[in-house]
């Protein structure tokens, strides 16, 4: 299938024997997520500095330790929380999982965030970006070593309201693939303009016995067949 060449989805098999589709997030949303986290961290450090600096030596110690914690463990903390994502990733609709679809383990989270140092080299996440741009699953070096994946939290549900038209039985038996194609066309109908919909419907016109014809009437009949295939009678 040609779609497999273009798709960046990663399939993970569960013990229940089904394939989960993971959709790895590319470099742009991840950069945005990083910037948001970066701003949050600066904000926290700013507040901490306001509180701790007047406290003298002990306060500075506290500030330095918090800075250290934020620098290395801020992502670890949030990745191990229930959402599996830092606030930045969460706001971009991303989360971190193991590349077999399981929730991230503490060891993996620590590994991927320690190896951030390697991703950062030579400057400004150079190696990390290179690795992400070269790979189909957009892993940076830390993700490679920790076997983790940054994925989109959920897929948009394409629930389309099919217009209620009088269902029409197909004029010939249809294979599963043909049925799926006709139903998928009906689902896409509201998002296509009239002419394009007519063109596409003409390709499927054999299902309603309108071979070789094209036009709104044919389209209506093909969509009616889709209704029938969905189970309306």
């Amino acid at each position, binding site marked *: 299938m040609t779609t497999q060449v273009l798709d960046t989805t990663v399939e993970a098999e569960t013990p229940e024997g089904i394939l989960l589709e993971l959709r790895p997030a590319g470099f742009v949303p991840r950069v945005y997520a990083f910037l948001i986290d970066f701003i949050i961290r600066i904000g926290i450090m700013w507040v901490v500095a306001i509180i701790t600096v007047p406290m003298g030596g002990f306060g500075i110690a506290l500030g330095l330790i918090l800075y*250290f914690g934020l*620098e290395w463990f801020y992502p670890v903390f949030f990745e191990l929380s229930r959402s*599996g994502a830092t606030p930045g990733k969460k706001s971009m609709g991303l989360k971190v999982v193991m590349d077999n679809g399981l929730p991230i383990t503490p060891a993996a989270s620590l590994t991927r965030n*320690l190896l951030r*140092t390697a991703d950062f080299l030579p400057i400004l996440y150079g190696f990390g970006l290179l690795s992400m741009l070269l790979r189909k699953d957009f892993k940076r070096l830390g993700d490679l070593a920790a076997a983790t994946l940054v994925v989109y939290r959920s897929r948009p549900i394409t629930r389309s309201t099919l217009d209620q038209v009088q269902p029409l039985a197909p004029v010939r038996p249809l294979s599963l693939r043909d049925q799926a194609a006709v139903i998928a066309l009906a*689902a896409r109908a509201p998002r296509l303009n009239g002419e394009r919909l007519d063109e596409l419907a003409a390709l499927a016109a054999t299902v309603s016995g309108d071979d070789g014809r094209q036009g709104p009437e044919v389209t209506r009949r093909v969509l009616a067949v889709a209704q029938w295939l969905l189970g309306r009678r």
Partner: protein
Amino acid sequence: MTPLHFEQLYGAEWDELASLLSRLHRGKRKDQEQVSGERLAVLYRRACEQLALARARSYPAYIVDKLEQVTSEAHQAIYQRRELGFGRLKQLAAVDFPQAVRAHAVYVWVALAVFLVPTLVLGTVVYFKPEIVLSVIDADTVADFESMYSQDADAIGRLRTADTDWQMFGFYIRNNIGVAFQCFASGLFAGVGSLFFLGYNGALAGAVAGYLTEHGLAATFYSFVVTHSAFELTAIVLSGAAGLRIGHSLLAPGRRTRAQALVVAARESVVIIYGVALMLLIAAAIEAFWSSSQWIVPPVKYGVAAVCWTGVLSYLTLQGRNAR
């Protein structure tokens, strides 16, 4: 069975599963406890079955998408692993960390050599030709070191900008643990980064030691470093060893692919890094509050240092040998 019939028949189950999951994800603790794990597992397995059916029968995308959504969310909730906790920490300190160190013995020896050779070489060279120190460290820093370890400093090893032990404690944590993490992470570049940081830190330590010895500040310097170095130098060498393991897995992956070898090496060597972080915390506390104090006489410091060194080395070589 038509898609609509399928949805009518099972749609209620998917919605129930989805609502259980949303309570689990967003609800309060009390609300979460009311979620029946048994019901969740049953619904999850049924949803898996129905997803397989829906895919095999090429049902419309919205049904398959909905099923994929609930199954993947439930999968995440059901297979969540919780391995953080006091028991885990105890297991780590009592067994896992020292065992991991011994499992990487070869890397530890190599790392030790890469650290120690520059230390000794530069130490000797600088002792006999003190001006060489300037090719490793810049003049201001050298002057800082000299004042930090002079007999009349109010606290040994304290930066001029820091006025309390606490401040130095914070500084040591941020700086030293950062160095160790860097030593580990840069092993990803075929081990070259770890070798560099080990050698560089070794050379630095050697140069400072040689220079201060030549300047007659040996008494304060060695009594300062001897105690916490049991934890600090060992930890740096261990983190370098963990980095070398990662680099080696890329150079010689054995019967695995490079990617697989890297994953295995990272999983096994990161255990060392847990221990290293703990050791450096201890080192920072000793360095800031014990090593730096002028009121403790050197003989006491050397005595405590001997205990620390024996303790650390026997912990790493003996602890958890019989545990599985």
